[in-house]
């Protein structure tokens, strides 16, 4: 099977599994439509034909009809068994990962996705870049509550569970951008836990991978930090224009005093920022909740430096 162009119901399908899923979907859709049409026809036809005209009278004693009853028991049974096997087949295909699949680690946390390419050592946030026509296996787990990795364009979905691994795989068949949603309710910003899957050509992918694993070499530290501010999703909580978000704004914080929720204070310097990024739960800024995820292990040394340099520039 292959990709599909989509229909009234299904969106464009850009993975090898999409065709199988749509076949099952359409099979059920068409048979249901026929059954539904029969039901509605029966209702309307009888309603008109046997509407009450004139005086009420006794009606015939039709209590059952074995042949008819067998028919409407057996035919649905056969149909559902077929549907079961179709659905199960395609499901098996989704569950059994091809041997040569490229592995990417996926971490869901409130409220963003991070992706790690173990071989290249690259990481991205909310943007999964994959090569076309290559099976990709996602090994997924969560940092906090249950999330669900959902790409409608690929017809795949899998819950991402804390302290457990789950997996899913796909093979993209069309270059382009696909929506990525979190489909399991996970709190305040559940509906903002969305991202993109970018399917690119093999060559582009190699280039991209190389570029993103080189830790911003050839860029100034603060430029690199500006890039990370977006790509590591700091911007989902911290603004740079002074407006309030889930976290304090970065604008002009460097060199200022902050007050914590236990009343103590500290001065925002390099060390403090480093600690705030790597161990955000040690001190909670007054008026905010302890929701900032720890970036320990997600950021390299140079990346932390770059972010600090960037925050310093935000007067």
């Amino acid at each position: 099977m292959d990709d599909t162009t989509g229909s009234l119901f299904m969106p464009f399908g850009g993975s090898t599994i999409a065709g199988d899923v749509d076949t099952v979907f359409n099979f059920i859709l068409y048979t249901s439509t026929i059954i539904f049409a029969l039901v509605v026809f029966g209702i309307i036809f009888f309603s008109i034909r046997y509407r009450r005209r004139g005086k009420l009278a006794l009606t015939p004693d039709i209590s059952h009809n074995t042949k008819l009853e067998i028919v409407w028991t057996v035919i649905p049974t056969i149909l559902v068994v077929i549907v079961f096997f179709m659905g199960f087949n395609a499901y098996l295909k989704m569950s059994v990962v091809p041997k040569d699949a490229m592995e990417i680690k996926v971490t869901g946390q409130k409220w963003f996705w991070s992706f790690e390419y173990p071989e290249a050592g690259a990481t991205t946030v909310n943007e999964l870049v994959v090569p076309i026509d290559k099976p990709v296996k996602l090994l997924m787990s969560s940092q906090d509550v249950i999330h669900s990795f959902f790409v409608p364009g690929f017809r795949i979905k899998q819950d991402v569970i804390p302290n457990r691994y789950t997996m899913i795989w796909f093979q993209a068949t069309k270059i382009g951008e696909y929506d990525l949603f979190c489909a399991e309710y996970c709190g305040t910003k559940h509906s903002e836990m969305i991202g993109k899957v970018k399917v690119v050509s093999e060559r582009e992918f190699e280039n991209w991978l190389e570029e993103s694993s080189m830790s911003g070499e050839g860029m100034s530290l603060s430029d690199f930090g500006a890039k990370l501010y977006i790509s590591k999703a700091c911007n989902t909580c911290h603004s740079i224009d002074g407006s309030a978000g889930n976290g304090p704004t970065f604008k002009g914080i460097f060199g200022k005093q902050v007050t914590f929720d236990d009343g103590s204070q500290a001065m925002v310097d390099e060390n403090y920022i480093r600690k705030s990024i790597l161990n955000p739960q040690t001190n909670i800024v007054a008026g905010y909740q302890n929701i900032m995820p720890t970036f320990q292990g997600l950021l390299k040394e140079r990346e932390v430096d770059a972010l600090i340099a960037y925050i310093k520039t935000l007067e």
Partner: protein
Amino acid sequence: MKAKASDHSAHILPLRIYLGVGFALFILTGITVMISFVDLGGWNVTVALAVASIKAALVVLFFMHLLYDNKIYLTIFLTAIGFLAILIIFTMFDTMERGRLYPEKAKPIKPGAAIYEREDSLSSRSVDTTKTDH
């Protein structure tokens, strides 16, 4: 009227049945405790549950009169057991089989709970409880 209104055409069990059943329950309890000190390999569980089931049957059949009463009550009781079995068995179709395709899906990533990693509780801890030691 009086005779019909009487509560128990249902019959009254002789005293020795109650005492006998009680005695049997005592003996069975003794047996099951003693067996638990003997290592039977995997069989300990089976034996313990078998004895418990016999005891349960005694209580239900005699103390609760199911042996003599209308069989509908027995049906209700067995229904309860049946649905309980469904609950446990069908859940185990999941919990025991998660690793069938990929073993890494079967186990937690970190087997130990977070409480054992907090510094305060770790310092007071003499044995490392986060690892299975068998």
